[in-house]
């Protein structure tokens, strides 16, 4: 069931009404049943994978909870990680590794060393696997007591607002919320509705509209050159943001209707002043997960001393993992590698940059410096979209080559289409989205808005709702991050 489908518009109110109607002790049952129902609609077989992930990590955590020291708990941690990560690798990366091994075997004359199978990837597996592994590690580290109630734990893994594409929640943040009775709160409820409305707006009005122009370019890269590619890269970045942050807003809003507070996933990423800053604002639940459970676990010392090259190598590893998490494709690995390299370069050249800013006097004009940093970061991020958006490495390099080719501007295909109303509307809406989110996050717009007269607020909501209905595209397009 898609968030932007009629099914969800019927499903969500039903669950919310029943949730508040039922006595507290039965609510977990309702949420668990509805979460599995929500998930099962994608494909019944996928539930088996979800259940296995749940049962194994639950069992391992309960066993860890009985053991006093870390050494004894290690076996169960390994069990949980091996099973969960094993399923993720099998379903998501089997084809990639088979191809890789077959290519290597091909050099020795062996063909089809590993038979290739077409394996369907259970939706959401990348998200709930990280959630279960994070939970197991927390129990292993002793920062979280294992959840004894299987139903509550199963709900933590399968909770319908987040099971398909996150946010990747931590056990210590979400599980306690299932034990607390949430009374109906009009403020929380309306704030959830506002988020859902805004998320829907970003998805069906902005992201889907932009994809009308972006998709043909990525499917026919050879035809486009110069400025056309540049515009496409920027629009692709905006489309992915509107799509994924739109999804996240609907997820957080849906949970908020029932009193649950999910982690934020975005914080105005295009106002980032460095690549490191960008990743602290983009898909926050993933990057913070990788930071806490992978980056901090990587060895940073050489002969007992913390050394810079180790830290830099760890950064590269971390970002290659970020890339690889997105999909079993060399494209994503290069995407991660590029981000990691940018981070390392920024770290290495940091003292030089500080000096440069002093010498040129930029440090005396912090606003200008800030704007420059934002612009450079944005360009760097967009430059990685070559690899993030296209279907293969070949396509990515073809795009890079075509970007530098300005000789065919007179034969441009996309440029005349940009005069199209839909495109202009898309651009205007992107600017509106960025400005509106700036108002909300920086200027506390929501607080000021809530103090306005009710008639004005209702008019604003109705305007937004009907703007969405009139200008939205309702072809039920999937969310971009569902593929990951």
């Amino acid at each position, binding site marked *: 069931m898609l968030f932007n489908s009629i099914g969800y518009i019927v499903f969500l109110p039903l669950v919310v009404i029943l949730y508040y109607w039922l006595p507290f002790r039965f609510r977990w049952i309702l949420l668990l049943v509805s979460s599995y129902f929500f998930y099962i609609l994608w494909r019944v077989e996928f539930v088996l994978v979800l259940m296995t992930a749940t049962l194994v990590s639950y069992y391992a955590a309960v066993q860890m909870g009985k053991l006093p020291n870390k050494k004894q708990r290690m076996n169960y941690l390994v069990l949980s990680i091996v099973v969960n990560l094993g399923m993720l690798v099998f379903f998501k990366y089997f084809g990639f590794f088979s191809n890789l091994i077959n290519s290597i075997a091909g050099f020795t004359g062996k063909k089809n060393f590993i038979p290739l199978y077409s394996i369907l990837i259970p939706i959401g597996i990348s998200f709930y696997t990280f959630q279960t592994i994070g939970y197991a590690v927390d129990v292993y580290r002793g920062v979280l007591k294992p959840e004894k109630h299987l139903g509550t734990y199963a709900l933590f893994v399968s909770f319908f607002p987040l099971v398909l594409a996150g946010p990747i929640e931590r056990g210590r943040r979400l599980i306690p919320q299932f034990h607390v009775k949430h009374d109906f709160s*009009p403020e929380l409820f309306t704030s959830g509705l506002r988020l859902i409305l805004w998320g829907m707006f970003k998805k069906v009005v902005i992201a889907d509209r932009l994809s009308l122009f972006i998709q043909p370019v990525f499917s026919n890269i050879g035809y486009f050159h110069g400025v056309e590619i540049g515009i496409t890269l920027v629009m692709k970045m905006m489309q992915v943001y509107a799509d994924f942050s739109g999804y996240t807003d609907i997820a957080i809003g849906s949970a908020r209707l029932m009193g649950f507070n999910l982690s934020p996933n975005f914080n105005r990423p295009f106002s980032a002043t460095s690549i490191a800053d960008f990743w602290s604002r983009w898909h926050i639940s993933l990057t913070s997960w990788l930071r806490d459970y992978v980056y901090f676990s990587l060895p940073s010392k050489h002969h007992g001393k913390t050394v810079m090259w180790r830290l830099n190598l760890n950064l590269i590893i971390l970002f290659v993992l970020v890339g690889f998490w997105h999909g079993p494709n060399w494209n994503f690995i290069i995407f991660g590698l590029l981000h990691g390299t940018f981070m390392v370069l920024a770290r290495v050249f940091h003292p030089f940059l500080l000096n440069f800013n002093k010498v040129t006097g930029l440090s005396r004009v912090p606003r200008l410096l800030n704007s420059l940093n934002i612009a450079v970061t944005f360009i760097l991020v967009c430059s990685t979209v070559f690899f993030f958006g296209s279907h293969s490495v070949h396509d990515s390099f073809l795009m890079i080559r075509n970007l530098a080719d300005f000789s065919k501007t007179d034969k441009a295909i*996309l440029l*005349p*289409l940009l005069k199209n109303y839909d495109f202009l509307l898309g651009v205007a809406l992107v600017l509106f989205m960025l400005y509106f989110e700036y108002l909300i996050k920086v200027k506390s717009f929501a607080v000021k808005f809530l103090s306005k007269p009710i008639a004005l607020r209702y008019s604003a909501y*109705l305007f937004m709702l009907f703007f969405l*209905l009139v200008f939205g*595209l*309702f072809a039920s397009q999937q969310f971009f991050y569902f593929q990951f």
Partner: protein
Amino acid sequence: MVTNKQFFKRSLVFILLAVAINTLLNFGYNRGMFYFRQCRVQDEQFRNYPDTLKYLMLGNSHNRIDPALLGNGFSYIMPKEVYTQTYYKLKYILEKTNKKPEYIFLSIDPVNFSPRVEKEMAFDGYWRKFVNYFELLRERNDPGYFRNWLDGYFFSYAGNYRYMLMSVVFRKTDLGLIKNGYIPARNYRNFSKEPDRESLGFKIATVYLSSYGGISTLEDTRSYQKILTLCRQHKIHLILLRMPFTDEYLKYARRMINLDQLDREIVALTRKYCDDFIVFDFRNDFKGKPELFFNADHINPDGASIVSNKIKEELSKIKDFKEVTGSTFRSESGSAACPKSR
């Protein structure tokens, strides 16, 4: 702090307001949308047309055959019409009216077999009176048809801001020009005067054909089969049309799909379900003649008149339809149509 009681009261007011605005928008759109107004005129003319109707044109806006030139014909086409909708319309005509056409004209252009078109069953506000959405839902196991049903009855304006604008721009259009259901081909633009012909050809070809994966993968093919079956059951001769396209459109369409193979597949499929059809192939007739087009994939009144006359000429040569069934009539160098392969 708002109490729960206050909140529910306010919510009720909000919902009522939203329902009222929605009803107004839906009603206004259904009344004023340009295509719907055209269709109401068509419906009215069809009701009043004699039951002895001989030629019936169905399908989307590509099918610009002027029934007046053929005599005793009616054009019952609708922009963006897909085969599923055509099937239900034909079924309605055959079952609920006393009209039984002898010949049906239907276009079999690549766009008719585009996965994009199939997904976009548009204008449900009009089609709801013909289409059985729940039957489709059951048959194809696709809950999306429930959305179509909802759109048709409650949200026909949703996502259609372009048609709203269009309806404002064309509010003074003289619908009296519609004769025998025939909506004269659009003439306020000429493709030969477009500065970005290449770009427009690319756009149309990409939008509709880039995700094409063969006709067997399409649900709409099933509706095409059903149309053929209906024609066979009611002993209707089927005249299939490949309408002319601009060079720019064909250039990109050919890069995206194998047009010849698609044509062969369509004919093979048609043979399987219907034994009483001919194909008129005008696809390349207007090569190098952008002045006969309105846009990349639609002929203008001049183009429509040439095609209609060619059809009239060819049909007059056919003595017994049974003798030429399965034939493809193709023009020689864009002049007069003549039988090429039988």
